[in-house]
């Protein structure tokens, strides 16, 4: 069927032989043909059972001891390594700390110098600002004084017309002699009628217009 040549020249082998027989994947249930199969229990003679038990127990004891030995060994090694590394790291840390402190002091000095200069400028600015404010306040006060004095002048001039106890009688008499009536009325056309007792003649045209 296949020539020797064609079989040998293939890149992939035509027949792949697996090392183990076909197995059911774990997630598949028991095969239909195997559901009711009851596997036979191995029959072991008492002699063999005892000997196998003894050998197995021996083996477990030995392996436990070896495992314990190596696990403890590993823990010991780890601890020693850790302690060594911790010493090293402590020294490194101390050096780093000293370096940091030195650098910090240097920075502090620089910052202090800058701060002094800045403070000087700031104080100067504050003084200037204060002076300016004082001048402005002075100016304002002067203005206010001038304003007040002008007011006083005006009031003094006005005081000649004030009613004093001496001129009270004369003022009353003057008021009685010249009564003033502030009442007035306004009609729809905007005509102003002064006084309370003033007679107003009604316009007849207006009435007729309303009736129509």
């Amino acid at each position, binding site marked *: 069927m296949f020539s020797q040549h064609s079989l040998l020249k293939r890149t992939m082998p035509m027949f792949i032989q697996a090392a183990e027989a076909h197995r059911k994947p774990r997630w598949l249930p028991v095969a239909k043909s195997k559901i009711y199969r*009851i*596997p036979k229990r191995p029959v072991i003679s008492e002699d063999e059972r005892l*000997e196998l*038990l*003894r050998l197995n127990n021996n083996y477990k*004891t*030995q392996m436990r001891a*070896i495992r314990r*030995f190596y696990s403890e060994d590993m823990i010991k090694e780890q601890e020693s390594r850790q302690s060594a590394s911790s010493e090293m790291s402590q020294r490194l840390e101390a050096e780093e700390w000293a370096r940091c402190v030195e650098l910090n002091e240097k920075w502090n000095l620089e910052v202090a110098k800058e701060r002094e200069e800045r403070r000087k400028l700031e104080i100067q600015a504050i003084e200037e600002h204060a002076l300016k404010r004082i001048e402005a306040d002075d100016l304002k006060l002067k203005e206010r004084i001038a304003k007040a004095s002008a007011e006083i002048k005006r009031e003094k001039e006005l005081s000649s017309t004030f009613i004093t106890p001496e001129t009270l009688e004369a003022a009353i008499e003057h008021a009685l002699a010249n009564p003033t009536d502030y009442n007035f009325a306004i009609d729809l056309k905007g005509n102003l009628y002064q006084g309370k007792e003033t007679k107003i003649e009604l316009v007849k045209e207006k009435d007729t217009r309303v009736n129509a």
Partner: protein
Amino acid sequence: MTSAVIKYVGRTTDFKGKTLWEIVGCLKNLGVGRIIVRSVFERYPETSFMKIVKVETCPDEERRRVRVWVEKTFRGKKLPNITEIYRTSYKPDYKLIPKNEEAKLLATVDKVHDYSNVVLPKIIEMPPLMKKFITKDHEKKGLEIMTDFTMPIRYNRSPNRVKRIAKGDEKPTVQFSMGLGTPASPSLYEGIQLS
């Protein structure tokens, strides 16, 4: 609950008996004060049994289980603490001891324990290859060279422990070693030279 005739189907099992709930659920006062036995413990020459102290039923989701507290006697030794049985209560491996046989069972407890005199060693000698490996390894790492090629044995700590472990400088009665040891059944080694 259980029929009188038990018909086994499927794979064979080592268990023999009923689940704990099948026993306890049929008894007056849920069987408090009664004695039960697990049949797998009957393989030991000494008696093992359990006296029920307290029973708690389980919710419907756990209908095969029951929570039972017992005074446990394992291999002729009564354990100091009360044991709780819950995880293993579903195993169909429990047997109820009839009341007329209880006295007989209790009488066997006082019998002297078979293995009480055995003292287990604390150390074991290393296997030959390991000895060589360790000497080389220590040389390579610059550690001090080992002269005592022994290592401590690790035992499982359990209240059921029968054989005693040596304390301090006590001399053990048995020795473990790397190798075949003395066979339990020499008939299997006929015609073979055992060094």
